[in-house]
Structure formats: C-alpha cells, structure tokens
C-alpha cells in the first residue's frame, strides 16, 4: 500500500514535470534542497462522484506546490506533496486522514470537498494536532482553532444573489435545495436574506443527492407560482433539475438564482439554452481579466493542457489556502502548528487570482472579493463585483480570538 502511494506521488510529479516542460521541477528534483522537506498533505476526490471537481483541485494543489518550490521552497526547505485520492468515499477520508496525521506526519493538510468529508476528518486532525485548511465554498459556521476555511460562504455570496433577484425579478421566492447540511443551511440563509430584503419564501423543497426525477417538484413550483426560484441543488444527479426545468418550458417563465450552479462542468455539458441567465455569485470566475487571474488560468493550461477551461472558485480557493499557509510559515519562521496559527491570526493578506484575500483572525475564514455572474453561451458574464466581503455569517457566532477553545460548526438560527 505504501508502495502504491509512493508511485502515485511519483506519477503525479512526473506528470507535472512533463506538462510543465522546462519549468522548475527538474531543477529542484535534481539539485534537491539539502534540508528535510516540509510535508503538505492533500485529501481530495480524484475519482468517484466528486471526481470532476476534485481532479482540478488536485491539479491546482500540485500547481501551487510547484510554484512555491520553483521560488525556492519555504524556509529554505522544499515542499513535499503527499496526496491521496479519497475516491468520493467517506471511509477512505477517515483512513487517509489517519495515515497523513499518524504515519506521514505532515505539517499541514489541504483538502476535503463536501462538508461531510470535512466533518469526517476534522476531529482526526484536531486530535493529532495537525493544521487543516478546508478550501471549498460551503455553508459557513465552522469554528475551530485548528481549521482555516478559504472558500466563500453564504453571507459573501448568497446575499448578493438574493439582493439581485429582489431588485430585478420580484418578491416571491421558491427554494429548492440538496437534502444535507449544505442545502439546509444555505436555504436558511436564502430565507433570511429574502425576508431581510422585504420578500417572502412561498415554498422550500429538499432533495437527497441521488434524486434524478424532478417532475413532481416542478409541478409543485408551478402550483406555488413564485417570481424567482433559488437553487442550492448539488451534484451530478441534481443537474437533471435544470434540464427538466428547461424541458418543461419553465426556463423562460421563472428566472433562477443558484448558490452552486456552475462550480462543476455545467457550462460545458449543458445546452446554453438551459444554463443562460441563471444568476450565481462566487469568489472567482475564469473570465476575470485581472493579471493574476489570467496568469493562473494560463499557468494551469500550460501545465495540464488547453482543455482546462472549467476552473472555478474551488480551484482558486485551494490555491489561496496553500498561499496563505505558505505566507504564514514564512512569517512564523517555522512549520510548528501553534506558531503558524499565530501567524495566520495576525491578519495575513495575500494577492491571488481571486484578488486580495485576508485571513480573518476571529473566524478563520477569508475576507475576499465576490463576483455576481451569469452564463452566456458557455462563458461567464460578470455582472457586479463586491470587494472585501466579510464572513459575517460565521462571525455571528464565532470568535476564536476570544474563545480559542470553541470547536463546532454553528448553524444559523433564523
């Protein structure tokens, strides 16, 4: 088993080197830093139901590590990436998390995609005192001194979708969401933002992730006749909702906003007629024209091929997480967990493809820019930009500076 993971790692590196051409990889591989490498562990789903999202995140992780190594590593030491494919299986998350913490003894772990996977591994890293970065757009509320979250949360994004919908389309909303923590909490925030903006919610339905037939749901929505539909539907099976919505002729009748649409490959696999006009809000879009953003897309394409056209917030947040950690290590002058946490809590800021990203000491979440965009013929059309969005949702209950011993995920009480 160890044998296999080593060869896997080697394969990753080799693949990277070939794709990168003449870039720095061979240089550091040959002349190797004399010092002991710093170990960065990665747990992401390269295969299985989340393989689509995970594959790009794995590539981004490799890209970021290579970039740091090309610049001389950290503290004069090279960074060694130890990556495991968790195959969208919870059991493998537990297993590889234990392996990273107990056997590989890595200095930091970057990974986890679903909230379920994060909750499965978080206690393991708490127990073994291994620093953990969770780099996915999620429902917010995680409050744990050992954990740093770099993805956007509802207060930074959903708020703007609801706001846009209220101003543009009307006051009555119908919410459809995935039946798990993310969907429930996001739906709660949607409801709250609707009410705060003077609107109302005429119905809310939750669907387990394996539901593919939405005909009865679409009938229910029609019966309720809302002005807008807000979707927090997640994953492969739920993509059927958008198709069936379009097929039932609803597309032109009721507009839609979504908190997760487009994070996967929806824009490339679905008909533009199905996707056009759905309003979304994330921390990054691949059509952003800032130099750092363009540079990131070009760099990834140079490394992994020109068909890398579906990069999204999940990937830049992964990049952000690694860069924030690297900066903190430099600042702390050590990879010791407590020193790095202190450095991160000093209000550290990095410039990344997503713009300016600051680690909020109180919540261990990022203060970042959010963008409102909608698909237009397989490309993202950016409608609005909101700089310096504060993770107000998590901050409502979480203050790790005051109460460093907190360890839970807060859920909104609305």
């Amino acid at each position, binding site marked *: 088993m160890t044998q296999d993971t080593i060869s896997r790692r080697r394969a990753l590196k080799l693949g990277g080197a070939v794709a990168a051409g003449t870039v720095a990889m061979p240089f550091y591989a040959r002349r190797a830093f004399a010092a002991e490498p710093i170990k960065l562990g990665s747990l992401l789903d390269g295969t*299985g139901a989340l393989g689509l999202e995970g594959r790009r995140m794995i590539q981004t992780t490799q890209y970021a590590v290579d970039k740091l190594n090309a610049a001389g590593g950290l503290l004069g030491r090279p960074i060694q990436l130890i990556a495991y494919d968790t195959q969208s299986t919870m059991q493998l998350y537990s297993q590889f998390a234990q392996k990273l913490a107990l056997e590989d003894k890595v200095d930091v772990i970057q990974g986890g995609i679903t909230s379920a996977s994060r909750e499965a591994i978080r206690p393991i890293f708490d127990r073994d005192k291994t620093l953990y970065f969770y780099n996915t757009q999620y429902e917010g509320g995680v409050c744990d001194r050992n954990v740093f979250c770099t993805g956007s949360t509802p207060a930074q994004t959903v708020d703007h979708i609801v706001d846009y919908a209220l101003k543009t389309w009307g006051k009555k909303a119908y919410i459809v969401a995935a*039946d798990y923590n993310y969907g429930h909490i996001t739906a709660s925030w949607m409801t709250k933002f609707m009410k705060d903006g003077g609107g109302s919610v005429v119905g809310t339905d939750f669907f387990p992730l394996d539901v*593919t037939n939405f005909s*009865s749901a679409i009938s229910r929505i029609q019966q309720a006749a809302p002005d807008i539909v807000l979707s927090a539907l997640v994953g492969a099976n739920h993509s*059927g909702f958008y198709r069936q919505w*379009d*097929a*039932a002729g609803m597309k032109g009748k009721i507009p839609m906003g979504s908190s997760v649409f487009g994070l996967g490959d929806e824009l490339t696999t679905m008909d533009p007629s199905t996707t056009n006009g759905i309003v979304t809000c994330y921390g990054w879009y691949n059509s952003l024209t800032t130099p750092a953003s363009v540079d990131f897309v070009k760099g990834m394409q140079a490394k992994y091929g020109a068909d890398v056209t579906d990069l999204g917030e999940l990937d830049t947040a992964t990049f952000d997480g690694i860069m924030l950690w690297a900066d903190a290590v430099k600042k702390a002058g050590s990879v010791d967990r407590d020193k790095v946490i202190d450095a991160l809590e000093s209000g550290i800021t990095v410039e990344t493809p997503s713009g300016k990203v600051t680690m909020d000491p109180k919540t261990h979440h990022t203060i970042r820019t959010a963008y409102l965009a909608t698909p237009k013929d397989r490309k993202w059309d950016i409608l609005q930009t909101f700089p310096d969005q504060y993770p107000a949702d998590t901050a409502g209950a979480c203050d790790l500076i005051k109460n460093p011993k907190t360890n839970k995920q807060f859920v909104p009480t609305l």
Partner: protein
Amino acid sequence: MDLTGLVAFNVVTGIATLFLITIGLGVIYGMMRIINLAHGEFMMLGAYTAVTAVDHGVNIWVALLVLPPLVVGLIGLAVERTVIRFLYGRMMDTMLATWGISLGLIGLVTTLFGNVVKAVPTPVGSFEIGRYGASLFNLVLIGTALVAIVALLGLLRFTKFGLVLRATMQNARMAAALGVSPGTIYMATFALGSALAGLAGGVLAPISGVSPDMGAAYIARAFITVLGGGPAIVTGTGLASGLFGFIDELVSFQTSPVIGDVALLCAAVLLIRVLPQGITGRFLRRSL
C-alpha cells in the same frame, strides 16, 4: 383543475417510467428465474450509447430509441455466452455473478468515460396543461412504454418464438423434448431483456444525468416491481408499475421524492408479504 391534470399527467409518466425501467428485468426473471443485478448498469450502457451516438451526430431519435436496445442487446448476448450460461439453475450464483458484472461495468465505464455526468438534449419542447407547463418528452416516454407493452404481448401471443418461449417457461424439459433447445431460448431471452434495459436507459437519458453509477438509482425499484408483478411478465409488470408508480408520484407530490421512494418500497415489501407470488400469482393468472 389544471393542477389535477398536471398531476395526473405526472402520475402516468411515472408509471410509464417505472414500467420501462422494470420490464427488461421482468423478462429475464420471468422467463429464466435469473435476478439480473446488472440491470441498472445495462440501462446505464443504453444511456451511454445514446450520449455517444448524439456526440457523433447521429439523429437524436435513432440515438435514443434504436441504437441503445441494439447495442445493449448485443452486450447482453455476450454476457450470457461468457458468464450466465455456465450458471443456469444456480440462482444464487447468477445473482452474485451479475452483481460482479454490475460493479465491473461501473468500473469500466468510469475508467473509459470518467465519472462525469453527461447529458443528452431533450429533442422536443413543452406544452401547456391549462396554465401549467409540462414536458412534451414525457409523452415520448409514455408512448415508448405503450409500444413496448403491445410489442411484447404480440411477441408472446402471436409469434412462434413467443410460443416456444412460453413453453420453455412452463416446462424447460418438455420444451427440450419437443426439439427446442432451452439454451438458445435462454440466450435470446437474456438478449431481449438486456435490449429492453438498453431502451429504458436510452429513452431516459435526456431527463436524467448520465453517469457510471446512475443504475443504482433504479435497481431497487425495478426489482421490487418485478416481484410485486408476479409470474405474468407483461401484465404483472404493468400492474405493479401502475400501483407503485401511482403511490410514488402521489406521495412525492404531497411530500418529497424521498418519502415517495420509501413509500413505494414499503408498499412493495408489504405486497410481497401479502401476495408472495406477486399480483398475477393470485389474480389474472392466465395472462401473459
């Protein structure tokens, strides 16, 4: 009133869908007493056939309705020749082997196509029921199910193949004594059942995402509907689909699809408890 119409339309669609996803399994189980646990994956292969054909510019109707049954029928034939035929009379072993085939197909398709949800465009638009919109494609589903019922009944009742099939089903040894090789019949039946699974996968491709593990979503429902239907394959599957599809859609509309699904499964388990031989084991015994 309009809403009643819409719900009724959805119920009929649900019944047709359930019939389509079940009948392939029913043919194989009814004729051969083989529980084909790879049924869901045969559907998945049908859906992938449709996706691939559409990607290569094949006419959409051909890609949805013609190619999937052909391709999956051939795959079923190959599976029967290489695995199933060695296991006749060993029900347990065929269940295990088809379970293995199911896992293998998921793995193979994942390896070849990646674990990505593919999609097929819906070839027709929508229509109005009063002030509600409904998908025209659901009519295609209903039509396909009706054609499948009529064709199967015709095949069983009026063709020589159907006669031999029924004879083999009644008494394999007797049929063998009449000079019909049960091996050939079983081979043809398995291919026919596979083709029907392929058809279901193809025709459902536009409304469900196409992914390697899509079969798992259908298998439990298909199973329990076959058992609920009882020995008369077409009639039984039709009646059970009607009953369970009705329960599922109605409960789904009132509550949520999960509860609908659970209601379907619970109803089926109760039905099997009350009528261990299924609906046609007790009623309409002489039907086909």
